[in-house]
């Protein structure tokens, strides 16, 4: 800040010459902009919550097990999807007709929920060669209808 000019007239109040120095502000913002550009993340990520299910053979499941019915959705090669219902169901449905593409998965899930209102959980599995992206898409679509969705970890 520039010093006060000497008062030429003792009766006059000294005036202050206030100047705004923009150079440090520009330096500061240049550094900030550079740092923010370098550290910016251009990837918006989210997560889909799932659980891990380890399958057991149906022979080990007691006959008088809980009445809960679970749905298994199996993604096959070529984008086909097959369904199976496990649990106490009359009559046992087994493997249903495979559908082509995940686009009709929502419609089939909607139909199944109307047919079996007690469905509460679903397990998603896939053929060994199915890419992970197809499995994630099946999980995402299934999450719209079921609060709990599990990923199959095989029978290990």
């Amino acid at each position, binding site marked *: 800040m520039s010093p006060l000019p000497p008062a030429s007239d003792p009766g006059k109040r000294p005036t202050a010459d206030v100047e705004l120095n923009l150079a440090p502000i520009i330096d*500061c913002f240049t550094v900030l902009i550079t740092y923010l550009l370098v550290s910016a993340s251009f990837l918006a990520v989210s997560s889909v919550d799932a659980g891990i299910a380890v399958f057991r053979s149906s022979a080990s499941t007691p006959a008088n097990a809980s009445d809960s019915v679970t749905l298994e959705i199996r993604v096959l090669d070529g984008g086909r999807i097959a369904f199976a219902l496990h649990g106490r169901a009359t009559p046992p449905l087994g493997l249903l007709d495979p559908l082509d593409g995940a686009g009709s998965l929502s419609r089939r899930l909607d139909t199944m929920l109307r047919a079996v209102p007690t469905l509460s959980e679903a397990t998603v599995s896939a053929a060994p*060669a199915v890419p992970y992206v197809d499995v994630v898409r099946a999980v995402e679509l299934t999450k719209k209808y079921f609060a709990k969705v599990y990923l199959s*970890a095989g029978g290990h």
Partner: protein
Amino acid sequence: MRKTFLRKKPMPPEFALQITSMADIFLILLVFLLKGYASSVTGIVPTAGTRLPVAITTGSTLQPVRDAVTVEISRGAILVEGKPITPLVKYAFPPTAPGTGEAPEILLDRALDRERFRAAHADAAQAGLRLLADEHVPYATVERVLARMASAGFIDLQLVVVRESR
């Protein structure tokens, strides 16, 4: 005697407090600290070449990524918390891990057990796992990794996806 009590000498300019530089430094420090705090919550940085799957749904099916143990399946390796544990050959498990001669599952088990032990003594929110996998990884590889996760006691999973920007 000098009459110093009548009139004070004006302070020389170099003694004035320069707060402009101090304000600049504090502003930059504040931005650094805010960015560091924001990035420490997620810390999602997939390795180069790993292409995460793009989400096809929106709304309640997608949740914010929470802090948890990170397992990444890339084309060439499986990483736990950023550290390579076992190599992969074109997304597939090799018969034995080169260098150690042990089965890759054993190496993965050890790494997951370590993280499980650490999570048990840390914040309970870190009890789950978040899975970052390349979209081309075959499900056979993912299934084997999931089996090791289940045997290590992890049952809650977050499948990390990329939100499509509109």
